[in-house]
């Protein structure tokens, strides 16, 4: 077994080179490179934790905003409903009032027209009597040649018209 049979000849060389190599590993790799690698691992872990915390905060904020948004929306809808029902009520009232006013105007106009109509009718009726009397007098004059006064003719027309 060379490990034991050669031990006296080789131990110095083995110790010497091992101490050099292990020293280099310990100081340049263990204390030089390893801390940098661990630092980048820590930095990544911290970044991930920070990002997660930020995302959690943003989520909570969004939840809050959603809640208040829903409340705002509800209030606005209520307000809009109140406004629209008030406007409807007002419009109905206005329409009633205008309708009533128009009714009144129309009925006065109707009454005036009726009055004018009856007056005109009366006037026409009296006109007809005169025309009829004149016509009767003319007819009498043409038929019999007798002269009838308009008073006599009017009297005769009146008598006929009242009879029939």
């Amino acid at each position, binding site marked *: 077994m060379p490990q034991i049979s050669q031990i006296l000849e080789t131990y110095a060389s083995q110790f010497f080179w091992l101490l050099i190599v292990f020293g280099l*590993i310990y100081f340049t790799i263990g204390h030089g490179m390893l801390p940098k690698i661990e630092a980048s691992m820590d930095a990544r872990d911290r970044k991930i934790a920070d990002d997660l915390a930020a995302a959690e905060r943003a989520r909570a904020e969004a939840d809050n905003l959603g809640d208040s948004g829903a409340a705002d929306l509800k209030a606005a809808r209520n307000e809009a409903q109140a406004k629209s029902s008030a406007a409807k009520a007002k419009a109905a009232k206005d329409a009633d009032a205008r309708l009533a006013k128009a009714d009144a105007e129309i009925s006065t106009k109707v009454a005036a027209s009726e009055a004018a109509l009856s007056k005109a009718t009366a006037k026409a009726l009296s006109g007809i009597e005169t025309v009829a009397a004149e016509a009767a007098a003319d007819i009498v004059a043409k038929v019999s040649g007798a002269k009838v006064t308009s008073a006599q003719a009017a009297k005769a027309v009146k008598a006929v018209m009242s009879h029939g």
Partner: protein
Amino acid sequence: MAGESGKIDPMYQFKIEPLAQLQLAGYDVSFTNSSLFMILVLGALWLFMWGGMKRDLVPGRWQMAVEGVAGFVNNMLTSSVGPEGKKYVPLVFSLFMFILMANFMGMMPFGIVPGVHPFTVTSHLTITAVLAVISFGTVLIVGFWKHGLHFFSLFVPHGTPWWLLWLIPLIELFSFLIRPFSLALRLFVAMTAGHVLMKVLAGFVINGLNAEAAWVPLVVSIPSFILMIGITLLELLVCAIQAYVFALLTSLYINDAVNLH
């Protein structure tokens, strides 16, 4: 490697051969094949870590692998020592990665190049002993630094009955002092035994193919080859497990030193 008379020596792979002679203060510190593989391990480890240094926010595959190992060691120390364990991450990471890379480097198929064979640094008692001493020394230094002489209370567990006070500390002291030996021997034995087994099976395959009788390759070489595939996979698993065990035990021992049970 074939020795004399066509035999395959499964121990040859552990032989240390000097590649360049070097003397320092009267000691022979020649650059050997073992030193070469340590340098290779250092290079491979450096390359691996360099690939993970991009420091992207969204890691690529390589960065993910490096961060996975770093996070694994970090997690091991925080779970066994607590938040104070972060201080020892560089040490345990260096131990873990050095052992893991050395184990894997010894499994690389460099043997396909004639005259080259892989060398497993961690299959040498001298290496594992130094690693165990580093681990155990850290425990002693941290323990006495943090707790002073109170560190000896480690040998008196909570709830020890007064009439056992003469025995329990003795047992605890022995189990404490045996730690570096068990750390060193476990790694050394596991790597040596696995590599010897693989070499023996490889010898079966090659010697069976070279045999005169035609039935030998069929009966010996093919089953050995199939078994060897399984053993190789198992050995790769052992490479990772031994590195993990070394790192885990080191972090548990550091826990003793930091928290005193």
